């Protein structure tokens, strides 16, 4: 797992509330990613970061923002959660040049 942790691991929240998911890595990877996994869609990229304070959008970025103030931490924020954001969220790090990505254990988010 290359030292990637996610918190919380499970969260239930209500529509309209803000939610922040945290990803922490210990291997000093430059690149970090947030994905969501949904049935029939596989893993879809939400946002990624290529360095401290350097982020870019993925294919499903609407309704999400990210921040990376330190190499080891990458935060995903849902400003106002909606039921369509109920999903399993995975953080990953690595993937530079010919390296693979290492994934965290996932966060299961339910928006009621």
């Amino acid at each position, binding site marked *: *797992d290359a030292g990637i942790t996610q918190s919380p691991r499970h969260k239930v929240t209500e529509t309209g509330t803000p939610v922040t998911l945290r990803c922490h890595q210990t291997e000093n990877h430059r*690149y970090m990613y947030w994905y969501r996994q949904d049935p029939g869609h596989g893993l879809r990229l939400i946002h990624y970061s290529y360095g401290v304070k350097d982020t870019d959008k993925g294919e499903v970025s609407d309704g999400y923002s990210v921040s990376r103030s330190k190499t080891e931490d990458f935060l995903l924020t849902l400003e106002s959660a909606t039921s369509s954001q109920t999903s399993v969220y*995975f953080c990953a790090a690595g993937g530079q040049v010919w390296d693979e990505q290492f994934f965290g254990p996932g966060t299961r988010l339910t928006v009621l």
Partner: protein
Amino acid sequence: DQQVKQNSPSLSVQEGRISILNCDYTNSMFDYFLWYKKYPAEGPTFLISISSIKDKNEDGRFTVFLNKSAKHLSLHIVPSQPGDSAVYFCAARPRTGNQFYFGTGTSLTVIP
């Protein structure tokens, strides 16, 4: 639009036989391809990769084949073992940028 496709949602194979998982892609700019394995309630873990300059890469029981003209890759597992039962995702990365695109996954069941 899905740029990486896994058209078989599931596959069942007898223990000891060969498992063949398929993946198709549409973007000719992809130059790095990976396979990940995912168990329930865990994050995906890297299995094997191949760059576009090769057509085959082997690692123990796992072999990945790349057919660039057909935009097709496959993962062969020989011999299949019950512990191989998992969801397998293929992923691809373009020549420029560091975004990874994932397929929808194939659930492999190896029957003892």
